[in-house]
Structure formats: structure tokens, C-alpha cells
């Protein structure tokens, strides 16, 4: 592994498989009566979150604790950031206290790359702006592999707010690296111009994207990142682009339906679909801990020669 995990863009297919296979071994630790191994004893991990997060922050913290790391959470609402400190200054001050790793979530794309340049600590990207969310894509791939062991002959449809989604970007990079056929669809105002260049098929028709798909991944409508009217109304969005019970009925038998959370029930996904038999949304959450344990473990080692 390289020093940091900034994005899927930096990973080779071999490294991706190594993380997924390590995560397979980590999953068993969560099933033990004592859910803890001594591996990262004496290591300090700082979770620095500049954006609200329940799932990702909790998942990282549980993963760190299961590996016996000392963890520290800095939520911006209670930090000196409110007094005007810049990200770089905050990072350098944290770094002065010699942590081993910093897990960063930030609203600006590229914030992790900035920290990577100025910090000795290992940096893990927990979501930067509209850029990447690598551990989400890794846990999605892990979840897909539990249902379809070979990713390279799957059709995966990703539907929703493509424009604002770092989850989309990381997933597209990962799935195309592993050879899947990826289709994306969403309203024209939320399409990502030029996305075909990443090797995916883009269509305005959700039904074309999801026909014969083995995996359907719904993305959240990110109202907090929208300035202006991207969709006429949430009800209309649901009718045209949402994952309705009717669409699930027409889908390929054995399809799995994924969502990175938090879900907007009745906006991008019908409530009874989210809770239905094809939904693997809570499996994704469960797998997140094992995948993050794998990333923490692999990054804690030496930097490999050549990197």
C-alpha cells in the first residue's frame, strides 16, 4: 500500500483485491465474543470530520477500536475551526501531537490531498467534497462479492444524483477497474458531463440502465449540496427516477439493491423496497466495519518499495 488512501484512483486491481480479502478475515472478528485484536495497540488515530456523518464516523471508530487503536474524534462543531483556523493549521497542530493516522472528511474536494502533502501521518479519505469516498466503494464491492463472487461479469446500474456524488465517482473507478459493466442514469440536471470517458454507459432512461442489472445502486438526492432547482419536486423525482416496487418487479431475478445511506424514503427509493428482500443496505453498513479494519491494518504497515 501507499502511504495514504486518498481515492480509488490510486489503487491497482491487486491492491483492491488485497483489501477485500483482508476484510474477509476481519469480518470474523466481529462475530467473536471478544470483538478485539491487539494489532494496532499503541497507535493513535484521529477522526477529523468537517461534515456531519453518523455511519462513516461510527464505522471507522468501531473498526479502530476492534484493532485496539487509541481513537480521538474531532467534530468541527466543537473545535477551533469555528474560531477561524484553516484546515492546514488544524492538521499541523494535530500532527504535532504525533498521531499515526488521520481519517478526514471534508466538504472540499482535494482536502485529503492537501493533508497528504503536509502530514507525516497516514491519511485516510472518509469523503472529500464531490471527489471520492474510497472506503464506501470498497465496502460496496465487498457486499457485491458476497452475492456475486465475480465482479468482472456483472452489470451494475447506478441511479440518482450523479453530479454531487463522491460515492458514484469512487464506485465507477473501482467497478471499471475490476471489469464490471457500469450503467449510470439520473435527471439531466444531475448528470455528470463527460462521465462516459470513465468507461461507463450513461442514459437518461432509468429503465434502460436497470434492465438485466445484477446490482442496482441508488444514490441519495443531496439537497445540502444543491444550490438552485435541480429537480421540479421530490414526488416527481420519485416517480421518474426512484426505485419503486414496480421497477423491482421488472428487475433481473436475484438482483441486489444498494444505497450508501442515509436514505430518503419515498425520494430515491420506496420504503418497502429499502426494507424488502432484495435490499442489502444494512449488509453494506455491517461490512463497512470489516473493510475499514482492513484499510487501517494495511496502511499501518511499512510503505512498500516503489511507492
Amino acid at each position, binding site marked *: 500500500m501507499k502511504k495514504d488512501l486518498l481515492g480509488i484512483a490510486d489503487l491497482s486491481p491487486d491492491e483492491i483485491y488485497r483489501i477485500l480479502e483482508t476484510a474477509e*478475515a476481519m469480518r*470474523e472478528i466481529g462475530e467473536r465474543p471478544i470483538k478485539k485484536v491487539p494489532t494496532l495497540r499503541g497507535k493513535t488515530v484521529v477522526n477529523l470530520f468537517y461534515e456531519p456523518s453518523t455511519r462513516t464516523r461510527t464505522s471507522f471508530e468501531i473498526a479502530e477500536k476492534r484493532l485496539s487503536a487509541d481513537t480521538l474524534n474531532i467534530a468541527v462543531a466543537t473545535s477551533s475551526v469555528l474560531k477561524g483556523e484553516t484546515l492546514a493549521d488544524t492538521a499541523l497542530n494535530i500532527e504535532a501531537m504525533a498521531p499515526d493516522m488521520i481519517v478526514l472528511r471534508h466538504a472540499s474536494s482535494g482536502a485529503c490531498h492537501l493533508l497528504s502533502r503536509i502530514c507525516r501521518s497516514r491519511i485516510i479519505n472518509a469523503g472529500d467534497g464531490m471527489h471520492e469516498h474510497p472506503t464506501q466503494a470498497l465496502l460496496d464491492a465487498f457486499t457485491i462479492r458476497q452475492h456475486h463472487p465475480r465482479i468482472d461479469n456483472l452489470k451494475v446500474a447506478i441511479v440518482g444524483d450523479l453530479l454531487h456524488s463522491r460515492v458514484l465517482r469512487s464506485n465507477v473507478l473501482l467497478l471499471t477497474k475490476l471489469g464490471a459493466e457500469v450503467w449510470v442514469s439520473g435527471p439531466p440536471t444531475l448528470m455528470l458531463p463527460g462521465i462516459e470517458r470513465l468507461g461507463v454507459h450513461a442514459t437518461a432512461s432509468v429503465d434502460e440502465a436497470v434492465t438485466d442489472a445484477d446490482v442496482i445502486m441508488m444514490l441519495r438526492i443531496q439537497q445540502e449540496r444543491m444550490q438552485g432547482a435541480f429537480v421540479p419536486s421530490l414526488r416527481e423525482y420519485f416517480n421518474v427516477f426512484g426505485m419503486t416496487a414496480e421497477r423491482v418487479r421488472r428487475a433481473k431475478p436475484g438482483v441486489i439493491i444498494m444505497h450508501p445511506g442515509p436514505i430518503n424514503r419515498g425520494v430515491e427509493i420506496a420504503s418497502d423496497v429499502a426494507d424488502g428482500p432484495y435490499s442489502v443496505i444494512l449488509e453494506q453498513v455491517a461490512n463497512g466495519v470489516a473493510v475499514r479494519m*482492513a484499510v487501517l491494518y494495511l496502511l499501518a504497515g*511499512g*510503505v*512498500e*518499495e516503489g511507492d
Partner: protein
Amino acid sequence: MPVVMDADRMKRTLARIAHEILERNRGIEDLALVGIRARGVPLARRLAAILRDINRQEVPTGALDITLYRDDLMRHAVGAQPVVRSTEIPFSIDDKRILLVDDVLYTGRTIRAALDALLEFGRPRSIQLIVLVDRGHRELPIKADYVGKNLPTSSSESVQVHLTEIDGRDEVEIQG
């Protein structure tokens, strides 16, 4: 590459260890085998098969990966982390007499890690250690209860155990 144990010899060695297990434990009541990955696992399964043939009773068998308990993790600035494989112990070890199995006993550090890992799964009544080869050079106060072969070596040599399940042949050889 001097071969110090061939397939036939290995077979008889494991049969002898199985009989020693029965003699010392007066039967297989409450016994369970746990192999240390990688090569302790097929050895544990073979011992389970021999014990089943003798006693017509199944001895529960598990696999233990000790990577996350190693004492040399993260001591190097260069190089990838060792590969972690899964631990599978599909039975409760509480109050069991555990037979821990590995291929080679050397510094004793692997066994130390294995004891730590195993004790997180419960409180066994006892743990006994089985190794195919004891090559000496202990760095920790650890001793095997059942030894296939004592093999005096120099620390510059390396002892390679090959097993059909992993390597396609049964053989122990000294290199270096």
C-alpha cells in the same frame, strides 16, 4: 536439499502422535484440535482423521490465523503487511482440552501469539502443543507436548515442511 522426513515417515509419525494423544488423555473426551495457519491446519485435519479411524468419534477441528497477534507487526518502515487469513473455530473452546498444532517449532513466538489469540475465544481446560518438527533455538519459555521429530539445526538453516494439501507433496527438508 537434504530430506529429513519423507511421505511414509510423516504418515507413521502422525499415527504415533495420535496414539500418544489417546494414551495421555485417556480417550478423546472433550478434546479439540486447532491448527495454526497455514500448515498446522492440514496437520490438525489429518490427526482428526486418524483419531476418528481409531476411536470412531469425531474430534472438532478449527483453524487459527495468528497474523494480527504477531509481535513483529509494524516494526519495519518498508514492506507490505503480512496477509491476514480467517480464523475458523466453529465450536466453543470453553472447558475443552485443546490440541494446538503447528508444523515447525522454532523461536516460540508463533505459539505465544497463538495462545493469546486462542484465549480470546474462551477458557479451555488445558492447551497442549503438537509440532511435526522441533528445530530448537527457542526465544521464549515454550515447550511442545508432542514432537514428530527433534531436528538439531543452525539458525542460518531453514526447515521447510511441504504438505500435499498445500504444496502437492509430503516432505520435510533443510535448506541453507
